[in-house]
């Protein structure tokens, strides 16, 4: 009886501790957000502002333009590049994964093993040679430099192939019996049946590209083509004194990632346990 009671208090304490830790973990975000809406003088001194202001957002969206730091444009650059890459990766991965999982041909296992082999090499090994490739293609300082190197993903193909293998062939054969084309089978049968794997590939690709920093830092020098991450970093280096606007920029950079995480949180959780297999 006594141990049961002890267990119960232990459980209550555990809940309190975990909730407190959870709050500590989101505290930096809350602080960042509040910092972006309070007067500059209070950023370091007060947690809760005496008054709320949108001047920092106004500054970064309007005045920064006149300083030749186009943040609105940078936001749409990031959005355009991330969405394009994500769509391309999902599309190409689905088509190729379908071929690798549902067609029988001699080179199949070879190609699949090659994809796994590729994943052994860390990306940073290729940074400089990739820069040379993009330079030789005369694509430096273009959106293509940000998009082309990522439009297909070995990891995406791998994930979807694994998932597609689990879909019974009967569905496909039944559809083909009714005269369905391959494209119909891929996009009307395979993709909906494997929507969680599709969501994982899309989510991780989007976050990876939106957050990408080193690569665009190297290949984009033109302020008009910079993604938000790079423009924010250069602005932070050049105008470090404008703390308020920098915080506002950081909030804008963070919002899409947090938003997409909250929307697709289920896929995210599944993705973590899936990488185990």
């Amino acid at each position: 009886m006594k141990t049961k009671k002890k267990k119960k208090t232990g459980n209550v304490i555990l809940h309190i501790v975990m909730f407190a830790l959870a709050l500590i973990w989101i505290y930096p975000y809350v602080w960042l957000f509040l910092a972006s809406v309070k007067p500059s003088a209070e950023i370091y001194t007060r947690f809760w502002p005496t008054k709320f202001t949108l001047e920092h957002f106004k500054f970064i969206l309007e005045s920064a333009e006149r300083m030749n730091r186009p943040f609105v444009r940078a936001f749409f650059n990031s959005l355009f590049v991330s969405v394009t890459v994500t769509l391309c990766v999902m599309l190409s991965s689905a088509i190729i994964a379908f071929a690798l999982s549902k067609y029988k041909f001699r080179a199949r296992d070879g190609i699949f093993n090659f994809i796994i082999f590729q994943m052994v090499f860390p990306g940073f090994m290729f940074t400089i040679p990739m820069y040379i490739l993009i330079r030789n293609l005369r694509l430096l300082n273009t959106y293509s430099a940000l998009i082309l190197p990522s439009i297909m993903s070995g990891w995406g193909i791998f994930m979807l192939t694994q998932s597609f293998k689990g879909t019974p062939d009967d569905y496909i054969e039944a559809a083909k019996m009714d005269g369905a084309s391959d494209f119909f089978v891929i996009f009307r049968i395979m993709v909906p049946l494997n929507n969680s794997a599709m969501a994982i590939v899309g989510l991780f690709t989007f976050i990876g590209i939106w957050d990408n920093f080193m690569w665009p830092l190297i290949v984009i020098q033109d302020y008009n083509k910079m993604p938000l991450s790079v423009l924010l970093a250069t602005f932070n280096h050049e105008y470090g004194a404008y703390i308020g606007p920098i915080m506002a920029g950081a909030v804008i950079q963070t919002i899409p990632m947090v938003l997409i995480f909250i929307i697709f949180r289920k896929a995210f959780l599944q993705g973590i346990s899936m990488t185990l297999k």
Partner: protein
Amino acid sequence: MAKKNKNLAKKEAIKGFSISSIYLVYAAIFWGYPFVWLFILVFSKWKFVGKPQFVGFKNITRVLSDPLFWKTVVNVFRFMLYYIPLVLLGAMLFAIALNKLKYGKTFVTLSFLVANVSSGVAYSIMFSNLFAVNGPVNRLLYNLFGVTIPWFSSPSLAMFSIALIVIWKFIGYYGLILYAGLSAIPESLYEAAELDGANGFTKFFKITLPLLNPSIVMVMVLAITLAFGIFTEPYMITGGGPMRSTLTPMMHMITTAFQRMDPTYAATMAVFVAGISFGMVWLVRKIMEREVDLV
């Protein structure tokens, strides 16, 4: 009928191969071509213009005797020394606590995971201000204990502080990997152990830890790979300083290639770093990986 089937199979094989070969063509351009260039770079001298000049093993011997390069490698090891034990312990406690939590599991999980989707640039800015010399964290410390801590400006502390913020980012992610492993352990094992009179301590070291081995190795591999590729945080927060105590191989590689205009040397360093990282992963697997069988 048999012939028709054979024809169909052949048609299918051609189709399958031609679809997959789209990827092969793409990989030839965006993986094969850079791969070949990597080899050329390692054995040549070249400054982005003209033709690469073959120099044999000169780049490699230069890396071996370059104190700055090895300092960056030591910096990564210092980072791992702080990062891996703390994040592993934290993630483990997180996973165990989550397993025992009855209410608010989703809230706790999401709070820890939302840290993981923070943008590298944005969270570096956020923490460099939170932990600034006169920032909010130091203000709180000063009010409570009368001390301030030079988080990012002391050479002996800067790398530790960077490790701390990366821990903030990854503890939830690693914790969930461990949690997934934890919830796969059948309850009956613990019950059987309890019948044999095992206490919590024995249960943890004889059941939980051995059965969690694959998940722990996975987290270790992820953490090592991350450590060798770290770039954004030191680039944004410390710029590699103070006294190069947070200069990482990636930062060194990028400045060598694009500011000192020495891509051949930078590429050679990249190969070395990849080799060391690979070696570490191999070592961890060799030492830690155990065959686990669930009876």
